[in-house]
């Protein structure tokens, strides 16, 4: 009965053409990632070695390893997390568990959007004006990490709020009716069921924080230091800034070195991202309700 008419065939052809155009655009968009990754692996791969990871830079950063920068990035990320995770989780708990739908909540949401949208260099200016100058932390790990923490705060808040809101309301009501306080309910029922979602957000934040450059340039990261930081009031090197420095500021750097640093940075960031994505997928398949 259903024979394709001339018109149906034409429609099918047109649809196929549109489909192809959109697919081509998508491929063109994601293709660069793969090319870039391939190039970085090919050119930077040979540089990566145990010495590269665990030695200090030598000869005016034209040789040697990246150890102080790698360690510095790790320290910056950890201190930033110490500040942003408690604050971000508290904010998300407030928004998800306490806030009514009123002007204050709308203002908070708007502030979060803007916090995420403010250019990183403006965060850097804020870090200089507030932490370095006003609070007199100087250019230090503390100032840099706090700047990073504020910049990535929205990531934690949004991820945490989402995973808190995914916990069914009936669980809360059941717990309240047992005579649990709001906080007991949050601790006993809400947080345990949201903790993996929060973790996903935190890992994502680590990935963001590790790669940022502008916010730490003037607040605590140094071009080169011959020694490791001893306290949070010292400056530190950082991988992201190191890549900037050896690829733009230092003459005579062998071609492979910055590729190696870029590759290392991307490995850190993408491994974190993959962890976060993997965790999210795993959790989706393992809901308890």
């Amino acid at each position, binding site marked *: 009965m259903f024979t394709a008419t001339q018109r149906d065939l034409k429609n099918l052809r047109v649809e196929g053409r549109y489909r192809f155009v*959109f697919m081509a655009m*998508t491929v063109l968009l994601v293709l660069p990632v793969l090319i870039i990754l391939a190039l970085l692996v090919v050119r930077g791969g040979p540089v990566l070695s145990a010495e590269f990871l665990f030695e200090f830079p030598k000869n005016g950063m034209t040789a040697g390893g990246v150890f102080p920068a790698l360690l510095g990035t790790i320290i910056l990320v950890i201190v930033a997390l110490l500040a942003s995770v408690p604050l971000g989780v508290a904010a998300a708990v407030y928004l998800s568990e306490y806030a009514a739908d009123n002007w204050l909540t709308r203002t908070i949401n708007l502030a979060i959007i803007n916090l995420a*949208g403010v250019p990183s260099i403006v965060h*850097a*200016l804020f870090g200089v*004006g507030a932490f370095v100058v006003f609070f007199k932390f100087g250019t230090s790990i503390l100032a840099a990490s706090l700047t990073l923490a504020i910049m990535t705060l929205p990531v934690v808040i949004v991820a945490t709020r989402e995973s808190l809101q995914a916990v069914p309301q009936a669980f809360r009501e059941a717990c309240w009716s047992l005579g649990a306080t709001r906080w007991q309910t949050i601790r006993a029922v809400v947080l345990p069921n949201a903790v993996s979602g929060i973790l996903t957000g935190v890992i994502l934040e680590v990935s963001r924080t590790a790669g940022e*450059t502008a916010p730490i340039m003037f607040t605590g990261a140094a071009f080169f230091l011959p020694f490791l930081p001893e306290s949070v009031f010292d400056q530190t090197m950082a991988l992201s800034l190191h890549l900037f420095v050896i690829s733009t500021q230092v003459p005579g750097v062998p071609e492979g070195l*910055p590729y190696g640093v870029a590759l290392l940075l*991307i490995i850190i960031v993408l491994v974190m*991202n993959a962890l976060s994505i993997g965790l999210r997928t795993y959790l989706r398949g393992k809901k308890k309700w």
Partner: protein
Amino acid sequence: MARSAEAIDERNLAWYLDRAVRVFVFVGGISAIVLIIGIFVFITREGLEFATTTLNIKEFFTSPRWAPTSETRPTYGALALIAGTVSVTGTAMIVAIPFSLGAAIYIAEFATGKTREVLKVLVEMLAAIPSVVWGFIGLSIMNGIIIQLFNVPIGLNVLNAGVILGLMAAPIMTTIAEDALKAVPDDYRQAAEAMGATRWQVIFKVVLPAARNGLVSAVLLGVGRGFGETMAVLMASGHSINIPDSVFDSVRALTATIAAELGETAVGSDHYGALFTLGIMLFVVTFIINLTADLVVRGIKKR
């Protein structure tokens, strides 16, 4: 037998703890507001005095001459820097808008199952690449490609930074646009298909118009992202103060100028104040962009 109320109605540790937590999370909740105001206050604090006394506002917006370190006569004309930012962001949007909307349409309307998941992960990876790595890619890879392809002397220019920035802004635009398309109820699609519309007719006549606000907001956020990007633009745009005639001219963006010069200024100097003044401008513009994007999205929800 029932107990008396008085024997059991006492405020205990749990009650006080609950109160304390309530205060703590409230502080956390309003911290976002405090911080955004704090950012504005602190950059204004550092920039305002310069902006209101030393700075010639007319010169700032009309002169292309940015020479804050000139010994004879420092001038603070931001026009070339604004032109740099606008040209790079504009180029980025020409690259990013069609590709990210196209990708969003493909992912939301055509792709299924595994393909969809893989594409989404790739888009997320694109978003995860740090801006300094993008800058390095502009510097070391794109530079050579542009020189060879277009036979120009310098490959660090508007085109280079624009393409890099386009790739950086694309993931956020794709993600938000895809969300907007996904938010269009399936009833709309089914109703249109029931009337004999083809897939692409459904997309163009039904889905895209219905998702219009979300798409506009996706573009706005992409613009905001491009406008505020620092490291990649600093490294890939060639770093010369210049109102560009073509995409092959080198330029310097507002953000890049702050990043390049802040390290050399003394706290409290005119130059320092001038850079914070640029910061105030960046803050205000991105604030407006984000606010507009939010209002546009809110528009969808109300409808």
